[in-house]
């Protein structure tokens, strides 16, 4: 079993309101209900009959070896895969009342409610302020003062305000990688999403930036439902409440992080989390 790191945010594992160990079903409301979900690229089936109930205001980690379909699932939650010409999906995925996969679903509105943070920090070649104000300007008509307040709120929320408050008009590309990623998170939450999708948000960052982003994720879960894809199992164990283990396009096991990492039901899960393969 994996030794728990000491640097874990103090309450992340012990204080979870999760529970029911026996069936490992969480007792909080479901934010994203995925049922019999299948995803394809052309004729290649990337995901087979995925069923997950992603809980509200919790961090759900998707773990598994490369090419197992974690990112595919993540990118379907806000239909980012619409841009991939050959991608299609079947089955059920709903966000509250909204059927995510329906043709009639307005992806513009969906993506406003379901923000995404990418693997590599991708700030626009604009100022820090304009980066964060980008989303609000797309969707809302706001006065300057309102916008200023919203930008400050978002940057504070993303724990990067103190570092950038004196250089809001400077290009965002001049920031360090970790700062850029936090500005990207600020940019995403500025549009007011309910769900945050994170696709390996720390994989391009150094350990110190990683730990600051992890702290941030831990704080953000009080307001947002967070789904995070990660290759780093320590990270999954540090930041997540729930954990889904993917292998070859299938969910092998889904349960509380505690249970997945300490008492996995499946042999494959155990092998993966203990580092026997992957």
């Amino acid at each position, binding site marked *: 079993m994996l030794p728990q790191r000491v640097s874990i945010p103090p309450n992340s594992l012990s204080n979870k309101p999760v529970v029911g160990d026996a069936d490992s079903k969480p007792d909080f409301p479901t934010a994203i209900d995925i049922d019999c979900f299948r995803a394809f690229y052309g004729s290649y089936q990337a995901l087979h009959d995925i069923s997950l109930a992603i809980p509200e205001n919790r961090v759900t980690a998707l773990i598994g070896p490369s090419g197992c379909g974690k990112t595919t699932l993540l990118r379907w939650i806000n239909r980012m895969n619409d841009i991939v010409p050959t991608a299609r999906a079947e089955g059920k995925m709903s966000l509250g009342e909204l059927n995510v996969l329906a043709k009639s679903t307005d992806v513009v509105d969906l993506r406003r409610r379901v923000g995404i943070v990418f693997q590599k920090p991708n700030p626009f070649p604009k100022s820090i302020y304009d980066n964060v104000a980008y989303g609000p300007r*797309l969707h809302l008509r706001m006065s300057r003062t309102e916008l200023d307040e919203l930008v400050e709120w978002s940057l504070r929320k993303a724990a990067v305000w103190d570092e950038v408050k004196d250089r809001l008009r400077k290009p965002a590309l001049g920031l360090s990688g970790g700062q850029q990623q936090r500005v990207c998170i600020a940019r995403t939450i500025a549009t007011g999403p309910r769900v945050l999708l994170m696709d390996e948000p720390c994989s391009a960052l150094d350990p110190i930036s990683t730990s600051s982003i992890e702290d941030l994720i831990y704080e953000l879960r009080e307001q947002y439902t967070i789904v995070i894809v990660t290759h780093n199992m320590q990270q999954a164990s540090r930041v997540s409440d729930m954990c889904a283990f993917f292998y070859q396009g299938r969910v092998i096991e889904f349960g509380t992080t505690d249970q997945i990492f300490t008492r996995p039901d499946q042999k494959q899960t155990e092998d993966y989390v203990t580092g026997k393969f992957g």
Partner: protein
Amino acid sequence: MNDRKDLSKRDDDRFADSGGDHRSLAGRHRLDRIFVRFCQATAMLSVVILAVMLVTIFSQGLRGFSWQFLTSSASADPSDAGIGPALFGSMWVCGVCALTSLPIGIATAIFLEEFKPRARLMRWFHSFIQLNISNLAGVPSVVYGIIGLTAFANMFGMFGDPNQPTFEIGAHYYDQYVSKGNRILLIPAENAGSPVPELKTGLVAYTSKGEPVKINVIGRGEETPKDKAIRAVTLKWNDEGGRIIENEWYYFRFPLGRGVLTGGLTLMLVILPIIIIASQESLRAVPYSLREGSLGMGATQWQTVQNVTLPSAIPGIMTGAILAMSRAIGEAAPVLIICGIVYIGSNPSSLMDSFSVMPLQIFDWAQQPSDDFHAVAATGIIVLLSVLLSFNACAVYIRNRTQKPLT
């Protein structure tokens, strides 16, 4: 693993101390130096060519270069000849060309790069367009001249003869007569092809100053009036007038005829593929992650193009566009087909006016037998090259000024 086994012990011995005779180290270095020298020489060749060209042109043409050369029009006398109307003609044509080709080219590139369809039929259609554009880029420019002539100048004959346009605004037709007092009289006419009205006393005509006067017509065998004032408005019954046209600045007609607009649109055809391909390449150079970032926040495709992709691609697009424009300025063949080599004495004043461009004027001078005209041609080339080089300098300036790191 199996491959490993096949390696015999004998080979191990042979290759362990990198077997075989050593190639001479000094020889390899010498070859290296020779190759570098060879590459330097080929690179210098282009510099030499440019230098020779500039020296030849400047030694021949610099003497004739003056302000007067820039403003005066072509002449039978080499010392009076100037490039004025051709310079202005080039500017007009390039203006038309830029105003039409930039929006069309950039919009096409955005369509091809940013709005890739998902449906199979549309994808096929998309690649069909792409293939066509690549093919168009390889079409010789003289062919575009023919297209311009049929499609723009004659408009496939749909609107009749270009000299008698079906539709026109901003044109006034007159029959021009010379009165007995040697004054010019202009009698208004309906249009280019209307019958010449019978000359009658009392018909209203305009003098060359634009004043309306009533004309006096004398019949067969009648005496010419003695009074100078009457003689100035007197025409003979059988005088023949010439139909002339006076244009407003907004003169427009269908078919377009062999005017500035036709020339500009034809050059647009020539450079459109270049602009589209350059724009596509600079759009493609914008990292995909930026588009995803924008789309992921709920931007529509147009908002993404407008706020993220296009601003990042603009430096590249502008550079490509300016280089395409300098191609258009230097293009002679299609314009030759559109307007031929005719004497143009004044700058164009409307989009339908006939025109000449610098390369054509230079060509005209260069084909004259006299050496004096060859010097004039060289002077013309100096003007053309200065315009081209300043275009290129603009492109470089814009590129250096606006290019920012994108990732």
